[in-house]
């Protein structure tokens, strides 16, 4: 379980997050919805301890990670997998090297097991035949699947998706959402999805939180979004995609 308690974050004079509290339970999919540049991706980075808040606390599985040192954060981060918006694949490595990198690097598994897990992930992500290709030779949807595979391969409890369908064509988007949903059901994973596409939220999220002007204005079951009277939520429900 991940919790943000009264988190405030500023960049210089600019307030990005104001007193934000959120919790994400294991085995559920929670979407964080909001317009571009409002600080949604920042929330994911806070959850991983990649950036520190100005005030408030971040709790991961009962451990307050707010003030942990970088080296103390590594074991916490290994409980979570992150899929970056631009995928952040290592461009000098092949697909199978990208998938196996953290198994070799952090878990130090025997090479046979690494190979086995990589092969399973390649099959699960539908990337057979592309093992030796560099990321630049793949389509956007395929790169996203590699990024998801890389996040999943060391079996985290929670997976964080930063705009998983941004920039993808409708077919690839559908495929990625189906992959996330399958994963959650088959592996009982918790997931946080940051997005500005409302349809994605209704497709797969059990719970949703809406971030607007640095504050959480809605945090409940996804279906209850329809009942919200907040003018911003009413407007986004009619527009479907947030481009504010």
């Amino acid at each position: 379980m991940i919790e943000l308690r009264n988190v405030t974050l500023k960049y210089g004079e600019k307030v990005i997050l104001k007193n934000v509290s959120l919790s994400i339970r294991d085995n559920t999919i929670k979407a964080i919805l909001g317009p571009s540049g409002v600080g949604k991706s920042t929330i994911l980075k806070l959850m991983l301890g990649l950036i520190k808040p100005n005030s408030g606390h971040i709790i991961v599985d009962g451990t307050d990670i707010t003030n942990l040192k970088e080296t103390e954060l590594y074991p916490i981060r290994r409980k979570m997998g992150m899929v970056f918006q631009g995928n952040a694949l290592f461009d000098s490595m092949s697909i199978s090297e990208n998938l196996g990198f953290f198994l070799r690097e952090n878990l130090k598994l025997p090479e046979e097991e690494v190979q086995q897990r990589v092969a399973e992930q390649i099959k699960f992500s539908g990337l057979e035949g592309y093992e030796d290709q560099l990321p630049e030779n793949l389509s956007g949807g395929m790169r996203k699947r590699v990024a998801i595979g890389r996040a999943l391969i060391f079996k985290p409890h929670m997976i964080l998706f930063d705009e998983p369908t941004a920039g993808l064509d409708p077919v690839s988007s559908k495929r990625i959402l189906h992959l996330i949903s399958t994963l959650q059901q088959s592996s009982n994973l918790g997931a946080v999805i940051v997005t500005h596409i409302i349809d994605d939220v209704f497709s797969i999220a059990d719970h949703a939180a809406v971030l607007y002007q640095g504050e959480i204005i809605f945090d409940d079951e996804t279906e209850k979004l329809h009942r919200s009277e907040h003018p911003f939520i009413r407007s986004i429900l009619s527009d479907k995609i947030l481009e504010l």
Partner: protein
Amino acid sequence: MPLTVIRSLEKDLSLKAKEFLLTMQEFFLFSLRAFFTLPKLRRYWRDFLDQATICGTDSIPIVLVSAISIGSLLAIEVGNLLEDFGAKTMLGRSTSISVIRELGPLLMGLMLSARFGSRNGAELGAMQISEQIDALRAFGTDPVAKLVMPRLAAALIMFIPLTALSDFAGLQSAAYLAEHYHHLDPGIFWNAVYPRLGPKDFVVGFAKAPVFAIIITLVSSYNGFIAKGGTAGVGRATIKGIVVSSGLVLIANFYVSKIVLENM
């Protein structure tokens, strides 16, 4: 009105000073981290070998070109000058001291700052912009240990043979020009070189190699790590890395010579 301008200037200066001090603090901690992770070299030996090839083997041509050109130039100019005093036989001595103590290591440092430093800045900057460095941290890998430490270790080791190569090429080219341009017998040239060169001259020259390795690697890598603002940001980080490390190489060159010569 002027008072408002002065206050605004004062505020700007104080902000800039604060920013500078924070950057210095960050750079210092970044450098410490790079040194503290050196014991992990065995774990990253493949990265080390890659970097050793890049900053060592692949840099040989540019080091040779710069050493040969400076050796030749020195031989011609110093030879002409010595000829006026009828002291052409001292050409070996003066060129060897210049090449081994100062110009060999300095030119190599500047060339490597441009070649190895720019590569570091651009590569790490691109990794930073595309969130690959964040990805390393997010999955529990220390990016300094993985990306900077092997570069530092490779530079510390490879800059020493490159200095030797630079000295050798510089002296050989000077000897060649002494023979073919100034018609000086090679025996006279080398006789003026060897007995006159003492351990102090080699210490001055070779002590610069690790100092330059540290400056070039850490400055360029740090600038790559803090790159922001898309591809233009990578360009800015690369340029800043080269400019700052080249400037520091020039300053360090003076101080290393001064410290060693005063204490030996």
